[in-house]
C-alpha cells in the first residue's frame, strides 16, 4: 500500500504554496518517505531564510508536525540526508540537530549542495511509520 500523507497545516503544502510537484510525504511498506524540508512558516507558507540554526530549528518543528500527524515522530527517523549550503557550518548544524534527536539519532549523511531559493539547510528523511 502506498498512501499520500497530506500537509497537517496549510503552509507545509509546498505544491499549493510554490507549485512544487510533490506530496509532503508518502507512506509505504512500514516507512514514511518525506520530501526535502526547508524552513517554511507552517501557517503562512512564507519562506523563513535565516541562519543554519534558525532554519534547522524551523525544519525540525515542521517535521515534528508532519510526522506526528501521520502517527510517527522525530524519534522514529531512520535516515537523514542533511543538506547544507557549505560544510563550514557542519558544527553549527550538529549543535541544533543534537537537540532534536538526542537519543539513538538516525543514520545520517551530510551533503553540501545548492538548495532551493537560497536556503542554507534542507533535511531529507526516511522514517519508520
Amino acid at each position: 500500500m502506498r498512501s499520500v500523507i497530506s500537509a497537517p497545516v496549510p503552509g507545509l503544502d509546498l505544491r499549493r504554496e510554490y507549485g512544487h510537484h510533490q506530496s509532503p510525504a508518502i507512506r509505504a511498506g512500514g516507512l514514511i518517505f518525506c520530501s526535502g524540508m526547508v524552513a517554511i512558516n507552517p501557517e503562512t507558507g512564507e519562506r523563513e531564510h535565516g541562519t543554519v540554526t534558525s532554519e534547522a530549528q524551523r525544519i525540525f518543528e515542521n517535521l515534528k508536525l508532519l510526522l506526528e500527524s501521520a502517527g510517527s515522530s522525530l524519534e522514529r527517523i531512520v535516515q537523514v540526508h542533511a543538506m547544507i549550503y557549505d560544510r563550514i557550518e557542519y558544527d553549527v548544524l550538529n549543535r541544533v540537530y543534537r537537540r532534536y534527536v538526542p537519543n539513538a539519532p538516525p543514520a545520517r549523511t551530510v551533503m553540501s549542495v545548492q538548495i532551493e531559493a537560497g536556503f542554507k539547510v534542507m533535511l531529507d528523511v526516511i522514517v519508520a511509520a
Partner: protein
Amino acid sequence: MTLPRQVIRPGNPSLDASRRANLPFSPAVRGGDFVFLSGIAAIDPATGEPVHGTVAAETRQILRRLDQLLQAAGSSLANVVKVNVLIYSMLDNMNSVYREFFPTDSPARTVCGAKLIGGHKVEIECVALASATGLHPSADRLPRNVIQPANPKLNVSRNANLPHSPGIWTGDYIFLSGMGPVDPLTGGRNLGPIAEQIRQTLRNMAHMLESAGSGLDRIVKMTVVLADAGDYDEMNRVWREFFPMDPPARTTCALQLSNGNGVEIECIALAGKRPS
C-alpha cells in the same frame, strides 16, 4: 528467513547503461517491499552515448527510461514513493516535464543542485514499491534499532560525539550513515590515494554490516560522494574488486567533503534476517 535480493537487468540495452559501459552498478535492485533505482542520466537509447540537452529534454528522456525500468522490475510510476533529483543549477527546473509523468498523488521528492558526473544537467533516482501490495500492511509499526560496529574504533559518531548513529535497522532494511576512510586500528583517517580511501571505506562498510548480521552482498542501494568528479573511473575500478557480480544500485555525485576526505559512501542494505 532471509529476504531475496534481486538485480533487475532489463533486456533493453538503453535501460542498462551500466552494462553497456561496463560500469559496476545495477540499474535497479529489488529486495523487501521496495525496488531501488540507480541515478539515471540522459543517454542515447540506440548507442548508449551520453546525451546533453536542455533540462527539459534530459528530464523527459530520463523519466521515460525510468518508467520502462520500473516496468521491467514489475513496478510502475504509480508505485514510486520517493524521487531524488540532482540538477546542475537550482536556477533551472524540470517541473513542467516532471508533471507529465506523475500527474496525481505525486511521490515525495527532493531536488538539489550539485555537480554531476559526465557533464549531465539532470540525474534522477527513485525508490518504488515493488508491487502495489507490499509485505507489510500499513498498520505495521516496525521496530527501530541502532546498529553499532563490533570494532569501537570505527564508531566515528560516538568517538567524535556526533549526533548520528552508525546505522539504523528497521523492518527489512539497514540504513548506514555516510562512511569515510577511517583506520580500523587507530580510528584516525587514512587519507592516502583515492583508490585506497575507497577500499578502506568499503572494508569498514562490510564490517559495519557484518556486525549487524548483514553484508556487502546484501546492499541494495549506495550513494557515493566524491570530492573530485575526476576520481569516478578510479572508484569504478575499486568497485569491481568488491562487487564482482550483481552490484548494488548506485548514485554518485561530486560535492565538497570535510577533513580532507576524498570519498564518503552510504548504503541501504537488506537485513540479514527478518526481526520477529
